[in-house]
């Protein structure tokens, strides 16, 4: 029996798991239209590689990974590309984002797939393949998996944790996946173990999922995988929390679990990885829980790009008096703005709200400094301090209190007797800090470029001056140069001869009618002659300059 460690704080919200676990995973029927966002993962969005009118097949790459932290995006079915344009996406902002809209042809033809021989493949090539196949963490953070599967040059990762805790209320997609496809999940973990060079594989499952624990334990027999039942305590499925619970290793502030030799993957990711490698099939579908105030709550194998409205229809539709939907769980999720928004790699659950299940939040009252939030905080922060400083926009201070170690789990808001939406303040502070950081970088860059430009202009001026100075000195040493170069000397002689000839011709032309002039006329003529001579000299100088 493994010794488990209890993390600080946590809360016990009502589970509501039973609603959606009554039926096996259902496969969504093929839809006439899919809207596939190109930004479904953390990092740079994929670059579209199809244009309207193109024919695509299921599993065909439609978004090329761009930059390092990025993965591919694929067509969920065969059909024709209708548009590549901004469409509503599931995001707290409600803003539109670039999507590929595909009209299904109903045939669902697939690209040719071939299993990958992962044992024989070079780990780096294998990772590149997974990057192209669109593998990203399906637990909700959608971080590109190929990066997490890179153990680095020297770093050794002895422990791999499969995260099946699914601690958030209402969500049951991992539960059902573990019940029905336990062997496949563990086969995926086998490949992960190979890629990371891991010795120990642990599966952490909260003890409110006895069927999943039984299925996984049965499948784990003889694989050297340990299935561990952990206490149901939200947020027990947080990366740092499950690492501590299972191994007792504390992830340092601002660090990653790999810093303590542990890598954590969601069970859904392990399953998707197996599909990618065993069947050569890119990530084009995932399990999504539809629950709450709907006719037939359950779990659906859903193609990425399925509009939420269609998914709700598959679950029998919303019951009367529904008051909107939540994407994700009630603790960390956000309200959906538009039912046309599609399911993406990060969407694990859609909850339909009604007034009884999700009553409107009571009006916030002033903070009474009771400290309940600090006792509940699983990241061992002081939420009330963070709240003060975020509220007064003292962002420097929020960072002194380790704002960025906050996992936004919502325990503090959950226990707050004054009903203060604490997490909203932390999110506000975080995005404000990020944006300022970004602005500062842009300003630094502009300063640098401006300074370089000033330097460049100065340098150009200097170079020009030097060039002129060189020319002037060359003119002084003209004779010497001519003596050295017979060709130049010949040219110069010719030139001088020509000038002399011209001068003679000029002198030969004597002005007429200039005898016996009155003195004032004579003076005028002298002045004109003087000016002419001067102009002639200038002209000559300009000529020689040009010839040089």
């Amino acid at each position, binding site marked *: 029996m493994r010794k488990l460690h209890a993390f600080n704080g946590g809360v016990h919200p009502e589970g509501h798991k039973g609603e959606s676990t009554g039926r096996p995973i259902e496969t969504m029927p093929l839809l006439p239209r899919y809207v596939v966002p190109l*930004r479904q993962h953390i990092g740079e*969005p994929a670059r579209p590689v199809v244009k309207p009118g193109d024919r695509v097949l299921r599993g065909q790459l439609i978004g090329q990974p761009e930059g390092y932290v990025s993965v591919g995006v694929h067509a969920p079915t065969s059909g024709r590309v209708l548009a590549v344009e901004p469409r509503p*996406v599931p*995001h*707290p*902002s409600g*803003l539109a*984002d670039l999507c590929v809209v595909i009209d299904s042809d109903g045939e669902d033809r697939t690209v040719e797939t071939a299993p990958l021989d992962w044992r024989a493949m070079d780990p780096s090539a294998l990772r590149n393949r997974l990057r192209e196949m669109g593998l990203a963490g399906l637990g909700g953070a959608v971080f590109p998996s190929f990066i997490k599967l890179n153990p680095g040059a020297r770093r050794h990762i002895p422990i791999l944790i499969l995260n099946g805790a699914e601690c958030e209320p209402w969500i049951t997609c991992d539960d059902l996946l573990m019940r029905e496809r336990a062997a496949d999940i563990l086969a995926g973990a086998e490949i992960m173990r190979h890629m990371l060079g891991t010795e120990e594989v642990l599966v952490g499952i909260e003890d409110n999922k006895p069927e999943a624990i039984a299925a996984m334990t049965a499948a784990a027999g003889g694989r050297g995988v340990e299935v561990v039942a952990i206490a149901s305590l939200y947020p027990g499925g947080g990366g740092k929390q499950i690492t501590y619970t299972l191994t007792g290793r504390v992830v340092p502030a601002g660090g990653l679990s790999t810093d303590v030799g542990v890598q954590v993957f969601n069970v859904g990711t392990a399953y998707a990885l197996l599909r990618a490698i065993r069947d050569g099939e890119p990530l084009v579908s995932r399990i999504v829980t539809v629950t709450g105030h709907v006719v037939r709550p359950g779990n659906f194998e859903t193609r990425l790009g399925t509009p939420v409205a269609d998914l709700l229809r598959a679950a029998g539709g919303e019951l009367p008096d529904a008051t909107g939907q939540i994407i994700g769980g009630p603790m960390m999720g956000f309200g959906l703005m538009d039912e046309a928004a599609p399911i993406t790699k990060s969407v694990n659950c859609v909850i339909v709200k009604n007034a009884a299940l999700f009553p409107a939040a009571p*009006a*916030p009252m002033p903070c009474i400094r009771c400290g309940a939030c600090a006792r509940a905080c699983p990241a061992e922060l002081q939420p009330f301090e963070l709240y003060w400083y975020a509220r007064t926009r003292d962002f420097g201070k929020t960072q002194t209190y380790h704002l960025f170690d906050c996992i936004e789990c919502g325990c503090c808001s959950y226990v707050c007797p004054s009903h203060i*939406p604490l997490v*909203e*303040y932390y*999110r*506000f502070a*975080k*995005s*404000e800090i990020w*944006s300022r950081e970004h*602005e500062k970088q*842009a*300003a*630094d*860059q*502009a*300063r640098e*470029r*401006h*300074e*370089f*430009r000033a330097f*460049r202009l100065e340098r150009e001026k200097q170079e020009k001056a030097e060039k002129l100075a060189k020319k002037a000195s060359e003119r002084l040493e003209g004779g010497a140069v001519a003596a050295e170069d017979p060709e130049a000397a010949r040219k110069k002689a010719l030139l001088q001869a020509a000038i002399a000839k011209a001068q003679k011709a000029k002198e030969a032309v004597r002005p007429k009618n200039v005898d016996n002039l009155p003195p004032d006329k004579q003076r005028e003529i002298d002045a004109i002659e003087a000016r002419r001579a001067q102009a002639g000299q200038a002209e000559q100088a300009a000529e020689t300059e040009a010839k040089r």
Partner: protein
Amino acid sequence: MLSAILVMAGIALVLGGVLGWAAIRFRVQEDPLVEKIDAILPQTQCGQCGYPGCKPYAEAISKGDADINRCPPGGEEGVKRLAELLGVEPKPLGEGLEHKPKSVAVIDEALCIGCTLCIQACPVDAIVGAAKQMHTVVADECTGCELCIQPCPVDCIRMEVIHEDIANWKWRYPVIPLKKVA
């Protein structure tokens, strides 16, 4: 009496010497004020303050020649931070100066005649092109200073406001809805 004065004078001399030595030996090279002011300025290099760039404006502020409210791209927020740094009262932006949303210059490439005038005007070298070749703005480097607009002989440069999208979207400050009580 005399010995007491001598002793005190001796102590004063010794301590004075020690302090003098320490002042030189442990001198703290403090960040000059100009650098601190320049760090707050947004570095658009737009010249709206009347100085040829952010650094000269920072120098003028530090000398007391310029007011702190002459920088429209910095906006109220920038004025506030300058006021905080300099220990003066913040004030609204100066007369005729207006804070505009951040934007970037866009060249209509079909109209551009390749005169290079905008390239020469750009304070951060964010326009690429050559004589009689089409020019274009490197959007990531453009500070939105608008200095390229005026020199363009064919009026082919316009400013485009940067719209909010998912990548630059920010969580809003939480607002508590007011409830009507009777």
